[in-house]
């Protein structure tokens, strides 16, 4: 038996001596936690040989807010609002993950209308999340214009969502037992207008970025990851699908009304940064398709089957539920003792798992490639740290 607890200091010391037989000198460089290309407060200690990366050591915890501890003292309805703050660009889908698990455990029956509304707003949010990812990727690679284009179109989505939900980012919309508010009378009309507006814009996105030779060179054959590595590192979402694994929860175990919509799962072929970039573009197209099929058929009915004041009790047991957010699979693990608060709550967050792919794919590349890799993984740091 050997349990050996180390520290970061020891870690960086040991590895620097390990390869000392080489003639070249290796050194460590800190990237972050205050670095514009890490989208927040991710810190990576890079072991470099010249400009070639030998090893990446992610150091986390600069935004660890102890959400799981707070959950142990909160009712399920209060927990939903904490999930907004994890992956804030998929906040509705995060809400959905908790609601779905609680509903399944507590046997809450939903109306058709709730499922339709949930699916449509979630897909709208997936579009806006990918727009941000697209724009920020351009910015990381040195092109500022995509950022402006992405945010121009994102503002219109937030407008639609704001009219119904009242928030622009931290939505807190899907609740166990339904959704917080019924859709605004303008909702259907505005969504249709938006789709008509956005479809040509998506082609414009492609003209602007996809065909650009510099972007192509920065992304193609950079950070290539095969499907087996991706599975072993627990990657999900566009990252896994870019590596040729068609794992999409919306397709393989449809929740909401995804089963009624006809859409394709976008997968990549090589698993490089380009595929991860292009899978997102294609997913925006598919999201548009899903919304188009559903928007006209929202049935009448209740939008909330439980009164807001009711404290939801989950029967004793262990429950695991998950949804496909814009970045991958968000799993919610609840251990309940039959009370209105959980005994233990665990979030299997997509970014935490996707992050570690950098340790596999970045070594061997250059520092500049690491920026492209983190941009293509589309990391949201508070979702890693919780």
């Amino acid at each position: 038996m050997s349990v050996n607890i180390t520290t970061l200091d020891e870690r960086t010391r040991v590895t620097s001596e390990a390869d000392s037989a080489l003639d070249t000198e290796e050194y460590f460089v800190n990237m972050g936690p205050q670095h514009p290309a890490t989208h927040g407060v991710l810190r990576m200690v890079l072991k470099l040989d010249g400009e070639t990366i030998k090893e990446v050591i992610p150091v986390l915890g600069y935004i660890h807010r102890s959400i799981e501890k707070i959950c142990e003292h909160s009712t399920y309805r209060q927990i939903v609002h904490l999930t907004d703050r994890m992956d804030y660009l998929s906040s509705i889908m995060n809400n959905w993950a908790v609601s779905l698990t609680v509903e399944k455990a507590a046997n809450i029956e939903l109306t058709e209308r709730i499922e339709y509304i949930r699916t449509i707003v979630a897909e709208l949010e997936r579009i806006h999340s990918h727009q941000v990812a697209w724009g920020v990727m351009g910015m990381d690679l040195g092109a500022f214009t995509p950022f402006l284009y992405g945010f121009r179109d994102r503002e219109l989505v937030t407008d639609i969502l704001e009219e119904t939900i009242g928030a622009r980012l931290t939505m807190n919309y899907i609740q166990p037992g339904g959704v917080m508010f019924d859709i605004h009378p303008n909702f259907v009309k505005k969504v249709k207008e938006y789709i008509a507006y956005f479809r040509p814009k998506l082609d414009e996105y492609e003209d602007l970025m996809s065909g650009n030779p510099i972007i192509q060179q920065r992304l193609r054959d950079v950070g290539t990851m095969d499907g087996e590595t991706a599975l072993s590192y627990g990657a999900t979402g566009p990252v896994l699908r870019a590596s040729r694994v068609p794992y999409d929860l919306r397709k393989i175990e449809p929740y909401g009304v995804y089963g009624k919509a006809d859409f394709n799962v976008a997968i990549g072929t090589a698993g490089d940064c380009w595929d991860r970039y292009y899978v997102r573009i294609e997913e925006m197209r598919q999201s548009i398709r899903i919304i188009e099929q559903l928007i006209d058929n929202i049935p009448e009915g209740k939008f909330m089957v439980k009164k807001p004041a009711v404290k939801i009790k989950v029967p004793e047991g262990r429950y695991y539920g998950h949804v496909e957010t814009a970045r991958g699979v968000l799993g919610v693990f609840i251990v309940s003792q039959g009370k209105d608060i959980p005994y233990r709550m665990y979030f299997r967050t997509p970014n935490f798992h996707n992050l570690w792919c950098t340790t596999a794919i970045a070594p061997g590349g250059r520092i500049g490639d690491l920026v492209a890799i983190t941009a293509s993984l589309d990391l949201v740091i508070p979702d890693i740290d919780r």
Partner: protein
Amino acid sequence: MGLVKKEEYAFDTMPGVDVVLTKIDYVVNWARSNSLWPLTFGTSCCAIEMLMATGGPRHDLARFGAEVTRPSPRQADLLILAGTIVKRMAPRLRTLYDQMAEPRYVIATGACTISGGPFLYHSYSTIRGADEIIPVDVYVPGCPPRPESLLHGLLTLQKLIKEGQTIRKPGVRHKPVISEIPEGVSREDITAEMVELLEHDSVVNIEETLGNLERPTGI
């Protein structure tokens, strides 16, 4: 002479001749307030709204002369705190602040940087307010605040800078944080007191502040 008209109280014109008299301090402050260089410091959700959406095409921070966001603290003089500060980040935040060039200003946006926000209770790592670490000039409430709120916060800061009223000392504000309710005190009492405190303390009434200020009256 448009400037003279706009900022009337800072300038004196000599009667009869085209000469402007002013205080150099005022001009310097005026220049500073209109060329703020923010540091990109976004830790979490607020960053999307505060740094990205506000800098984006619709809200366009550039209109107020503050669009030159810098990733390095040495080139920045405005720290827009966007996002939760946790124990592990606190020393780094202090370092960033110390590295910024004088004079430096801080805008704290979002509930998290004001009080700890949604992570106030039962959290073992969230710092309850950025002003426990660095002095803060302007607080912008919200979770996250709307981009318009940040713009308002920025205008407030510009006014404060023009008047030389920015805060440099920590611990200026006393925060009403309830940890334990003593006997004989009800929740309502505390809420009422908080409302009073808030109205009294942290809402800066700009008109009033400006009204009370001593105005330069020539040389």
